[in-house]
């Protein structure tokens, strides 16, 4: 029974990783851009929520809705004015610019908030748990997982049911022809990154509520997100959720065997999938 519990905890943890990964997956899907500052943007989102909570005395669950439009604007501007200039055939500029951004952002956060770890204020709800049979589930992990599923359902609706979603897919296929349809690729890319940062804000909420965070933990979040995306198969959002679950389960099972093996077990699961299915478990057909 202890193993069932471990695996269920792992699945729920996978929801958090899927939230980390969904924005990365979206941006890659639309413009083939891998943002190496993605993890640091999540951490920045957590600090933004913290500032709103502290300054305005809001609950984190309210603050996140204030943070979302700010993060959307930041993402839009970041893409429109900086990252769009790096897109092209050469892979070096986007990689090196986002890597520079990652280091700059990390150190800006260090300068602004020091290296001390922080946590978003929790209340009765965030520490509550429910019992199902003999298994105790935290409300927080359940909420995280539900949010991940909602985000992925929402993104799928956006992609396949709306006009902007059609424009995302068309621009991803062929930006020049898309412009002949009256689409401005530069704005489409900016909107995609804006939406990615809205998801990042949701991920940041749970990051900050569930555990301590400090300016240096961004790169590790990027790596988990990346592993979830690759395991799921590039461009598949449900695959990304599944990839997150695999990493989560591997980590909790690893930690159950030996606490020092938690992170290592997640990485090894990723390498095994890479070995067996190099294109991930649910690869997109045309890529």
């Amino acid at each position, binding site marked *: 029974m202890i193993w069932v519990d471990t695996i269920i905890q792992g699945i729920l943890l996978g929801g958090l990783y899927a939230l980390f990964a969904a924005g990365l997956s979206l941006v890659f899907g639309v413009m083939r851009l891998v943002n190496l500052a993605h993890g640091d943007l999540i951490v920045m989102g957590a600090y933004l929520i913290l500032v709103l909570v502290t300054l305005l005395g809001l609950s984190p669950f309210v603050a996140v809705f204030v943070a979302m439009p700010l993060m959307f604007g930041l993402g839009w501007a970041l893409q429109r004015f900086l990252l769009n200039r790096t897109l092209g055939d050469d892979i070096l500029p986007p990689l090196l610019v986002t890597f520079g951004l990652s280091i700059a952002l990390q150190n800006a956060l260090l300068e602004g908030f020091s290296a001390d770890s922080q946590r978003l204020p929790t209340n009765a709800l965030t520490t509550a748990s429910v019992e199902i049979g003999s298994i105790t589930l935290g409300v927080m992990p359940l909420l995280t997982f539900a949010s991940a599923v909602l985000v992925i359902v929402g993104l799928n609706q956006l992609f396949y049911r709306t006009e902007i979603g059609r424009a995302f897919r068309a621009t991803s296929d062929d930006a020049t022809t898309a412009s002949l349809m009256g*689409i401005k690729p530069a704005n489409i890319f900016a909107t995609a990154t804006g939406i990615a940062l809205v998801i990042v804000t949701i991920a940041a909420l749970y990051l900050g509520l569930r555990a301590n965070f400090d300016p240096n933990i961004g790169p590790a979040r990027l790596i988990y997100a990346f592993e979830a995306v690759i395991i799921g198969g590039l461009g598949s959002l449900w695959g990304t959720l599944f990839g997150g679950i695999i990493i989560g389960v591997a980590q909790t099972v690893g930690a159950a065997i030996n606490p020092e093996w938690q992170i290592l077990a997640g990485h090894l699961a990723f390498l095994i999938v890479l070995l067996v299915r190099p294109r991930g478990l649910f690869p997109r057909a045309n890529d």
Partner: protein
Amino acid sequence: MSLLQTKDLVAHYGDFQALFGVDIELNEAETVAIIGANGAGKSTLMRSISGVLRNDAASVAFDNRPIGGQSADEIMSLGVAMVPEGRKLFPSLTVEENLLIGTYGRKTTGHWNLKTVYDLFPILAERRNNPGTALSGGQQQMVAIGRALMSNPRVLLCDEISLGLAPVVIKDIYKAIPQIKAAGASMIVVEQDIAQALAVADRVYCMMEGRVTLSGTPDSLSREDIHNAYFGASH
């Protein structure tokens, strides 16, 4: 007064100059054909007019407004739609989504909508939920034309719509052109197939090596004139 006009239009690909001062004109409700051999600059001309290649503002005018400096999406929203060479359907979109995306930059309530496009090409209605790229070449060409029509453009640019298609399929597609004209669009049709072009056009421009070498109504041009303008007088 012409609807669309190029004036001393030049175009470059890096160091290579593809157009040398091209002047053409399209009047309201007119169909103009542009013929010429491979590499004559026909497609470059289409790309310049549609804004895929940027030009000097004054070198292209639409409705007497200079549009040469505008981007492709801006020109499209003014009412200049293009059926690009090679059809260029979006593989991630179904047939119907490919048609719908044609209205992204320009919402209108003209003759053309999903229903009238399906009436024009009934086969597309049957295959509306297939991915665009699962269709035959001719059907894909129908989607590309329908996609451009969806925004009820005032000018329709058709780049090599018969290229790579079987003669019987080409005939099917050209059957649609009178209906498109009747619905009110002015058209520029780029063709390598001279007979097809002469059959639908009110006027013809012939291009060679980045220049217009001949122009006139189909009746006024002799076979020999066209031959010389197409291949150069030395042949």
